[in-house]
Structures are given as C-alpha cells and as structure tokens.
C-alpha cells in the first residue's frame, strides 16, 4: 500500500510539475512567437495567446511583460498617431496588471520607461519635455532595482541620445550609457528561462549611430 501512496504522491508531483511545465512550455512557445513576429497580425496572435495564459495564471507577470512589449512594437509599426496611442493605451493597461503582480521587477519598470518613450515618439515636439522626464524617472528606478539590467541602460542611453540630438547637446554621455548596456548584454545572465532577451541588436545599432 505504501508504494501505491508513494506512487500517487509521485503522480501528484508530476501533475504539479507538469502544470508549471505547461506554463513554461506555453510561455516559451509564445515568447518565440513574439520575437519572430514581424506583422501586426502576428503580434496580435501572440498577444491573444499570452492574454489567455495571463488570465488563467493570475500571479505570473511574464505574460503581461510580453503583451506590453508586443503592443509597444505594434505602436511603432502603426503610422496613424491616434492608433499608435490606442496601442500604447493597451500596452499600459497590460503593464499595469504586470506591475500589480511584481511592482519591483526591474524588467517591468524598464517597460514602463519604454511605454513613455513610445508615447513621446508619437509627437516629440509637444510631448518631448513631459515624457522624457517621466521615462528618465522610471528608467532610473529600473536601473536602481537591477543595475545589471542591460535593457534599462539601453533605453536610458537612447533617451539621452534622443534628447541630446533634439536639443543640440553633446551625445558623449548617452553613448557611454549605450556602451555600458552593450557590456551588460555580454555578461547578463537571465534569472530564469522566461526572462526577456531582447535588446542586444538595438544596442549594437545604437552604438553604431554613436560612431563607434
């Protein structure tokens, strides 16, 4: 009988593990969908899948991370400023859900900076001042939460580069920040399988702009 009980426990364990496996497996599949997406429809598909996972799981922030990320990219792909803003609204709504679960997750706070940057890009002339301030503030917080986070450093560097160019200032400091982010991309070890991986390519491109 003991053996049966033991086996049942094993089965139960296998079930629990498989639930976690199921989450991770589903997430991994959809994360690669996000990274491979290059049309609005493909992003929407991934967002739909991630939304289901997020709704079912309740205490996982990763689905919301990738939903937010996808909507931001969709806003960059869109031309109409009104639609850009509606995508960013959706990004913000998803991000708020993620932040409610993990308020101190550096990656999520970084995405908040990314969302502000997207907002700024819709109308730099009029939104520049306000949103560059807001983005700088949260990115600083993201770096404080995890000084190794290369994405936070990259977005901060790009924000500094953009403002310096717009205002005609020096880009030295911005470029140093981007370089630092690239260094961190080399050494950064993800804490878990579902952690964000993107950004190294952008950092390399951004550094090229700097003339290095």
């Amino acid at each position, binding site marked *: 009988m003991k053996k049966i009980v033991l086996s049942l426990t094993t089965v139960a364990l296998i079930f629990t593990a498989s639930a976690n496996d199921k989450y991770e497996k589903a997430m991994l599949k959809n994360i690669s969908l996000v990274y491979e997406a290059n049309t609005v429809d493909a992003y929407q598909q991934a967002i739909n899948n991630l*939304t289901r996972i997020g709704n079912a799981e309740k205490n996982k922030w990763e689905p919301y991370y990738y939903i937010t990320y996808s909507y931001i990219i969709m806003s960059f792909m869109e031309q109409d400023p009104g639609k850009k803003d509606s995508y960013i609204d959706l990004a913000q709504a998803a991000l708020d859900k993620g932040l409610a679960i993990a308020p101190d997750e550096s990656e999520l706070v970084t995405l908040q900076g990314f969302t502000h940057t997207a907002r700024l890009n819709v109308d730099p002339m009029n939104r520049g001042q306000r949103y560059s301030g807001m983005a700088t503030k949260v990115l600083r917080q993201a770096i404080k939460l995890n000084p190794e986070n290369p994405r936070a450093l990259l977005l901060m560097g790009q924000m500094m580069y953009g403002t310096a160019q717009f205002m005609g*200032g020096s880009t030295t400091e911005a470029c140093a920040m981007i370089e630092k982010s690239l260094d961190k991309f080399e050494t950064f070890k993800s804490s878990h399988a579902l952690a964000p991986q993107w950004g190294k390519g952008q950092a390399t491109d951004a550094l090229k702009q700097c003339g290095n």
Partner: protein
Amino acid sequence: MKKPILFLFLFIAGQHLMAQVSVEGYVTDQNGQPIVGANVYLQDTYDGASTDTTGYFSFETTEEGDWVLVATFIGYRSEELPIILGDGSSKINISLKEELNKLEAVVISAGSFSAGEETKREVLKPLDIVTTAGSSADIAGALNTLPGTQTVGEEGRLFVRGGSGAETKTYIDGMQVLNAYNSAIPNTPSRGRFSPFMFKGTSFSTGGYSAEYGQALSSALILNTKDMPVQERVDFSIMSVGVDAAATKIWDKSSFSGKIQYTNVTPYFNLIKQSLELEKSPVAIDGNFAFRHKVREHGMLKFYGNFNKSSVSSLLADIDSPEVKTKYQLDNHYYYLNSSYRDVLNDKWSLKSGFAFTYSKDIIGVDQGNIAEKQNGMHAKTVLSYDVLTQLAINFGGEVFHRRYQRFLPFTADNQLTEAGFDEQLIAGFVEADLYTSNRFVTRAGTRWEYNTLSQKAAIAPRLSMGYKTGDNSQISLAYGQFQQTAEDRFVRVANNLESEKADHYILNYQWLSDKQTFRVEAYYKDYYDLVKFNEDTPDDPTAYFNDGYGHAQGIDVFWRDNKTFRNVDYWVSYSYLDTKRNYRNFPSEAMPTFASNHNFSFVYKHFITDIKSQIGWTYSFASGRPYHNPNEPGFNAGKTRSYHDLSMNISYLWKSNVILHAFVTNVLGVKNVFGYEYGTQRNEAGRFDRRAIEPMAPRFIFLGVFITLSKNKSLNGLPNL
C-alpha cells in the same frame, strides 16, 4: 497485482488528458462582417484561438462540462457565453458589439477649437501658441490667428464673431476669471495675464458652448492648468522688457511652482520712439504660484495664485487744442486665487469643485484727481459627472457668483467723493447629457438656469449640439444655444436693474481631420437681443437705459492646417467672413460696430531648421477696414478705415541644450495701420471736427530674450516657458 493498478491508473489519467474536444465557430460584428484577430477562449484556461481572416476560430480542449467561452477584440465589448463541453465538437458563432471608443468616436466640434498636449484632435498645442509669430507669446495673440476672430489692434483681446472683447470670458479650471487682461491705457493693447504654458489644454470656443459655462455672450476661453510637473527645475530669463525667475519643486505627492517677473519697458521706449507721449513707461511686477497635491489615486487638489502691480502714465494731447495735454496715469493692483479639486469617486461618478477669487483695482490719475475702479469677485462651483452607461453621461452642477463693483469719483462740483457701484449675485445650475447613439453619432443636450439678484430675473438657456461622423476623418456638427451676460459695468453702475444681454447661436460645422492635416469650415448665425441702449445726452440717468437693443452677426469661417506636406514646416490659413449690424448703446440706427471688420485673414508659417537649431515663424494678418463715426459726414459709423496688414516674424535659437534665444518683430514691413479715428468735440475755423488716428504706439515692436533652464536633466530648456 500492485503494478497493474498503478499502470491502470496512469493509463486512465493519460486517457483523460488526451480526451480532446474541439470548439469552432465564427466571430462577426453586429453587421455580420468577420472580425479578424479576435481572441476566443475558455475562461481561465490556456485553451483558445485567434480568428482568421474569415472570422473563423477553432481550438481543441481537454476540459469537460460547463465552461464560459470568452470572445474579445479591441474596440468591441467582450462577450461571455456559457458552453457545455461534451462529446464531439461544439460549434458556436459569436457576434461582438462595437464598444464606444471616445478616442475614435465623433466629437462635438461645432464652435470649438481645442489645444492640448495629450489628444491628437487638438487644433493648437501650447507650444504652437508661443511659437506663432505676432502672438508675442500671448494666448489671445495666438488665438487671433484662428478663424472667427477679428483683429482689433488697439485692444489685444479676443473679439469673436461680431462680439466685443467683453463678450469673451476666460475660465481657468472651470472657474471664472475677472479682468483676465492687464489694465492698459485707452487705445493701447492689453495682454492676457496668464502664461500659455501654465496650461495643458486650451479650449477656445467661438460659440455654442456647453451649459456648464455662462456669462459669456460670444465666446468662452477655457483653460485647464497642468497637473503634477515631472521634473524640478529653475528658470531665468533676461528680456528686452524685463527679467523673470521661476522654480519648481516636487515632493512625493505634491509640487510647488513659483514665478516672479519684473517688466520695465522704459529702456526700450527710450531707444525706440513711441507715438504716444509717456510720462512713465509701463512697469509691472507679477507673481505666480501653483501648488498641486495628489489625493488618493485619482484626486487632484490645485491652488493657483497670481498677483500683479502695474503702472503707466501718459500725456494725451487734446484733439481740439493740441497744446493742452491731459494726464492719464493708470495703476493696477490685481490678485487672483483659484483652487480646485477633482476626483473620481467610483466607476460611475466623478467630481469637480472649485473656488476662485479675483480682486482688481484700477487707479486712474487724471489732472483733477484719482478715479478708482474696484472689482471683487467670488465664484464657487461644483460639477458632478455620472456615467449612466458607456454611451450616456450626465453632467450637472451648480455655481454661485458674487461680484462687487465700485467706482469712486473725487471731483464733483462740491468736491465730494461720489461712489457708484453694485453688488451682483448670480445663482446658476446646469444639467447636460452626452448621448452616443453609436461611435458615429453624438448628441449633447443641456440647459442652464440662472438667477440674477440685480435684475431679479431668472432665465433658462437651452443648449444643443450634435455630431455625426461622415467618414473615418470627417464629421459634421451643429450647435444651438442661448447665451446671456450681465450688461457692462459702466451701464449697470448707473442702471442697477438692467437685464442681461442675450444672444442665440446657430452653428453648422464640417471638419476633416487626418494625421497632421486639418480642414474645417463653419457657418454661423447669431441673433442678439436685449442689448443695452441709452441716451447719450443723459448718461447718468438710470431711467434712460433700456434693454431694447438688438443685432445680428453671420458669417463663414474657414481653417486649413498642414503639418505634413513640407518637411519641418507647419502652416495654417484662416479666413473669416463677418456680416454684422447692431442697434445698441448710443446708436441712432442699425450699424456695424467699430470693432468689426468684414474680412479677416491669417497665414501662419513655422519652419524648424535642424541645421541651425532654430525655428523661424512668419505670420501675415489681414483685416478689411473697420467702421468709424465721422461727425463731418452724414450717417452713423459710415467711415471706413483702410485695411490692416501685419507681417510678423520670430526666431527661436537653441544655443545650448538649456539656453534659448528668442526674438520677434511685429509688422516687419512697417505698414502704417489705423484702427479708427477719434474726433474733437468742437468745430474748427473751417466748421469741421478735427480728428486723430488711433494707431499702434510704434510701427514695430521688437523683442529679444534669453531663456536659461537649470535642471538635473540637462535636456530641459525654456521652450515651454517663452
């Protein structure tokens, strides 16, 4: 036998895991059109699918029994359907209803120009106001390049659609501002007291506005102040007309901004000769502060204060005998305090409440002594908004105004101080409903009730506007409303029980709005009635004042703005046609008022040149001649000035990331503009009345300024504070 049991168990479990059923169907909108990319899934599971280009979805699930099937899509209301999962496949078709999306939906645009930072529908942004050449960074100056306004160069106020400057009222965060313009000596333009960059949104209504606003016959300028600033900063400016310093401090939930400005035009007037003889050039000290405090999640408490002391003194030659010069000294003391609170109470209810106080005292020094004109105003208001449904919202509220106007004249025959004045109280309430029948069609219907203690009259003023979206980018709107306003102080102080003056507005508007391009055309008719008429010969006799004046104004306004066709270039063109006549005040018959002109045209051009880090702006304004009354000729207001032309230019140069140089010149070509004529009271030897032209104090005004910003983030600069 133990092993087989376990095996069996695992087998059953495995079988169970593999028992899949399929769910499939179509998702369509209310018109039966397929919805592509909708998310259809079993609630709280991973199981689901997105619809394809035909609206078809299909997915497999291992779940059994009673479940909820959810279908969602952006812009549509989510649908939840019960589903029983059993053997075989479930087929289910879902129809989604369009959700009201206020961003995409039709808006009420008749009669209104809005400017703000956030939404893309805005016609003008705060930055546009300061970068418009010829605006002199004055809100009214920039709005004067929009259609519906008339150029009245000697006033500097907003004259809208045949209405006088007094018919436009200014509101800050919903609260009325009395004396919103600096005091100026007669026939010199005044400036608005408030810097354009205090505001995140400006809504300039040229008619037909909401029932929330009363006491404005022609136009409402609705200014909404900024919320919490995002960064601490210190600003300094050195300008050809003065200096200023400003600072912003931010705490966790609060912020404080203060600004102090000293203006002294003496050095400039010494350098550039003015046609008006000044004993003392304009000098002013001006202070502003703003305090913000966040309450709970959505609550915002705001305090805004402004004080201003200004002084100017001129010598005016008598028209009949030019060697006789009359002194006119003007000292103004002004305080304005505005406090407001807004909050979201719950899903359905939100609240706006405010209190404003204005104190203004003009001391006019003439040779015989000082005339003082004093005004105290208080305004308290509360507005509640109730979202009955997504498609239906109701706004209602009440307000109380109290105003005390006093005028002191020291020089009567027996040298006694005489005082004329009044206390006016207004109690008003309004209710208004916005009903979206669909994303395409909106109706706003409201009514305003007002009781005035002076005239002891209550009035009900209905308002109605509608908007219909004719295409993705175009819409037509119309508006109707009754508006009323207490008669001007100079009349009420004599005849206390004068009734309010009234006007009905009828507006039809077409608007086409795309990314960075705007076209709109608006036709209107305004019917004025109950206007004050009085007998010129007995201006002090209260019984000689009546509310039997009337008039009309009609016209067409056209606006085109393009920020797209030319790279780094933004331009707009405005044209207004106005036909107006009134029989009011001292008019002997129906005539065109002296502030009106038939044709007004503006062309505003802004070019950002990246290579030299500069923005250059040009504005050309034209107004056809204005009537003036010539006592030497028959007829009333029968004379007409020559037309008005002004070409202004400005340049902003970003010297360093936190230093901006700004310069502007008005009337670059030096055209000699005449706003009207004043006539003497006695006939000369030839039996005619001599006259003097009302004209600008100098052909051009030149401004130079350096704006420096210090902040932790070096990218901040003074652009928004010019």
